[in-house]
């Protein structure tokens, strides 16, 4: 029982608890907050694995920017209280089936492929140095340049689309 393992267990429990909290809250704002907590826990996982850059990026992008926008929209629309309305009829069986499939798949992968030597295996000390940032940047802008650029174009398209939609709705107000 080393300290990493205990930390991992506690964090894993926290991650599951916050995820459940997000799903089960009837109030959209609480759901959003649980999701923020979940992102924070995942960021700590990254720290545990010796990847501070990804941990910080996770917090900045997901918890700091995207979820703030989510909250903004929830508050702006006043959609925080969920009416106890009916769910779609086919949704529940479908979700249950998919969940079972996911569990079976995960179990198969875990058992058949075998667990790695430890639950948490931090990479070498190298990843924690400044060099790792440089390495990552080189990989991102060298080896994976095309996927990187395609992703950014995709985001740009989404942004332009959102702006076009918003403009049309306003109509002749300008």
């Amino acid at each position, binding site marked *: 029982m080393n300290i990493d393992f205990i930390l991992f267990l506690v964090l894993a429990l926290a991650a599951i608890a916050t995820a459940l909290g997000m799903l089960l809250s009837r109030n959209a*704002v609480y759901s959003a*907050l649980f999701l*923020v907590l979940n992102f924070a826990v995942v960021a700590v996982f990254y720290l545990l694995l010796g990847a*501070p*850059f990804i941990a*910080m*990026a996770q*917090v*900045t992008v997901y*918890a*700091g*920017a995207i979820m*703030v*926008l989510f*909250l*903004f929209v929830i*508050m*702006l629309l006043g959609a*925080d209280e969920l009416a106890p309305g009916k769910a779609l009829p086919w949704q529940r069986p479908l979700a249950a089936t998919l969940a079972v499939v996911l569990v079976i798949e995960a179990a198969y992968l875990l058992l058949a492929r075998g667990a790695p030597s430890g639950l948490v295996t931090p990479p070498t000390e190298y990843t*924690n*140095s*400044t060099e*790792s*940032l440089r390495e990552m940047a080189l990989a991102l802008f060298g080896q994976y340049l095309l996927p990187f650029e395609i992703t950014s174009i995709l985001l740009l398209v989404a942004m332009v689309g959102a702006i076009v939609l918003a403009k049309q709705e306003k109509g002749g107000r300008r």
Partner: protein
Amino acid sequence: MDWALLLEWFLKSLVLIFGLLGGFAYTTYYERRWIARLQVRVGPNRVGPLGLLQPIADAAKLIFKEELTPAKVYKTVFFLSPLLTMVPSLVIAAVIPLGTSFTLGGRTIHMYLANINVGALYLMSVASIAVYGIVLAGWSSNNKYAMLGGLRSTAQMISYELTLGLMFVAAILLGNSMSMVDIVEGQRDMWFGAIQPVGFVLFFIATLAEVNRSPFDMPEAEQELTAGYHTEYSGMKFALFFMAEYQKMIVVSMIGATLFLGGYRELWFLKDTFLSVDRAWFLGPFYLVAKVFLLLGLMIWIRAAWPRIRYDRLMSLGWKVLVPLSLAVIFLTAAGILIESSWFILISSLLAAAVAVAFIQRALRRKAYEFA
């Protein structure tokens, strides 16, 4: 476990936290005296010599005030949000170096709490978390004014965070590292604020918006929103918001000084004299405090001098002027580093800023025609 190391961390954290708390108290005093001077008044001068005990009297008053919890608030979030505002404003200071290092009983003690290789990113992520306290305070109060304040602050912070982050990038490019210590040491020969003054000004504008200081104090605009997001708060909970606001001011001044004004380092042309921190380690914190003092004074001066900006203009300024200009500044900085000429960076970014100012001027003049 190295107990001496733990003790060192503990003591450093204590110094940092109490420094910020004391700094908060006396920043309020500084603000009131300095604004009074700018408005040809006297300001608080009754409690203690020169009014120096005023902050302590204020603290005692706030502690003993009655705390009200309105009936229809969302209790948990209502209690948590002052803390959510307060804590980021303290922990963000962990990566800011306060000085070089000194030896005490055979140990080298560095004057920073943590020197992580993603220091700049740490600052960004904590700063982006800080908005939650305000938004949730607005929402959980169940009050329209508070809600509007919360909404405004979200939109404002998201918009100005872009400029803030991009200006971090400019400093990172110039310092060739994300570690704050390396960035400060990179300014040994020349402050980044002297190479890239436009970057520093953009950073300063963005930080004013980020800490909700005038002229960007939309979330708590008294005339429009009563008191904005903290309308329903009283007593110690209100005091926490108050503290957080002033601590944020101090911390962003520290960050601004670190990124662009040489941090704990002396003026660049003094680097070989006896005033250099390389010769005298104990001067480091003094230099940093002096710079923070100047930046705070500038913020207060701006509050005394300028009216609040209108909300649509705030958004236009953020998205149509500051973001494009910061992108241009980053591009020019990177180009200047590539051709190894700091003059190129200085002149080209000043030109870019001139174009932006001309653009604002033209837009405003056209508006004036429309309304005339």
